[in-house]
């Protein structure tokens, strides 16, 4: 075989190799793009579910206030304390989120509500209650949403105005 022919064959082989590499690379990029796009759809759905939590949380039987089994549109302050003690059991429901209640009206001392403050005679004497908190070890983004809610104190039978704050780290 002449050296010219040999050169032509080498060129053709090179073209085939380059084409194959480009075709495989294109396929990999396309596959990754589509997979990322599916992951983006799932993330978007998780975001919608997160927004939907603003409606779901105040309506959960674990929090919703009632009297003689007739439900009202408010959060029971005492049940919120109870739920805050069961955080581990609600990971399936809430995942990596933080749920807080911040009492707006009447004006209360700027303190986190704790068991010892609850036992004081002047309770409610605090303006924040952490209902649920689970933060991932590492995350890239944080989203925070809030909504006003009515809080019912079953002992004093008073209502307070609060803000339900939801935070999502992902």
């Amino acid at each position, binding site marked *: *075989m*002449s050296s010219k*022919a040999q050169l032509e*064959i080498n060129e*053709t*082989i090179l*073209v*085939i190799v380059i*084409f*194959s590499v480009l*075709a*495989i690379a*294109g*396929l990999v990029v*396309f*596959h990754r793009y*589509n*997979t990322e*796009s*599916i992951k983006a*759809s*799932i993330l978007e*759905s998780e975001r*919608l*579910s997160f927004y*939907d939590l603003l*409606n*779901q949380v105040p*309506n959960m*039987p*674990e929090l*919703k206030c*009632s*009297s*003689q*089994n007739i*439900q009202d549109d408010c959060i*029971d302050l*005492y*049940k919120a*304390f*109870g*739920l805050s*003690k*069961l955080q581990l*059991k*609600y990971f*399936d*429901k809430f995942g990596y989120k933080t749920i807080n209640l911040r009492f707006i009206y009447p004006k209360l001392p700027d303190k986190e509500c704790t068991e010892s403050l*609850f*036992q004081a005679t002047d*309770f409610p004497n605090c303006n924040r209650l952490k209902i649920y908190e689970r933060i991932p070890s590492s995350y890239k983004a944080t989203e925070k949403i809030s909504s006003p809610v009515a809080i019912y104190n*079953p*002992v004093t*039978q008073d209502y307070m105005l609060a803000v339900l704050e939801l935070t999502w780290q992902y």
Partner: protein
Amino acid sequence: MFPSHNKAQAEFNWILILIAGFIILSSFIAFAIDYKNLSDRRINTELSLALSSQLDSLTSAGLTTIVDPEGLTFFSTRLSCKSVILNIGEPISIEDKVIFSSGEIQSDKLLLWVDEFSLPYRISNIYYISSPYTKYYVLYDDSTQQLANTILSYIPTTQDRKRFFNFQMIAEIDPYSIENDIKRESLREIRIVTFNDIDFPSLSVKTKIIRLSKNLNLGDVYYQDTNELAKYIKKQLLLASIFSDNYKCNADKLLARLNNINIIYQDKAARLFFKTQTKQQCNYQLFISAITSTDTSDIDNLPGLEQRLSTHNLELNKRGCPDVF
């Protein structure tokens, strides 16, 4: 020398052209297959997400809806205790939702019904999912006709007063007649509800026999095909046992939620007791001990617990004490 050299080169060129052609063709085929798989996966994932969000939006008890995805003819919905998968889509978590349905539904639309489970306070919404191609036969005899009628009365109806789900009462299992129904209604699954032992009929589609106790409020359900025995309470779990291939797992999920809510009410009662110590008439101990002394993992104990909690709550209210629920 030269002609044979030219011939060899021509042959070699043809081989290279064939290899190049094969690679180019393979690339296009691989691209087309990958594109189809990924777009199917994407559509099905989006549909699963849409189904999950539709379940989220069904918050009021008694609501029914039909999921009829555009652009899909027959699709497969696989529901487990943890996730839902449409065709080859990604598994979408159903979180704490309690969904009773067949393990796999082949249909062009899904029928959804949401009901509320209370004991005595609200515990959770429960969802029933089926399809128009799943038929439920309730087998009765003279002694169980009233029970069969009661089960059918639990099924929601549409605006034109037809049953939302495909239920029918039958006095006997006639395989010939059922096969006719299968052909006429293009059925894909048969579920036979019975109150007595029956022989497993040989039918051309997936068949499940669900044997119930003669007490519809509290009893046992026996699945003849899997030899599985479970318990139900109230109409919600009775119906759940009829709709579900995965009854026990979902019922356990519901009982776990009941247990959590019991703990919250027990905690609330203890807090109310602490805050009303000065009022002698406010005795929350009975309420608390009703919860603590009951093993809620055993369904048999639940009717008694429900009765005691309702009584104590009413009594507290009558005495001018803050009620627990």
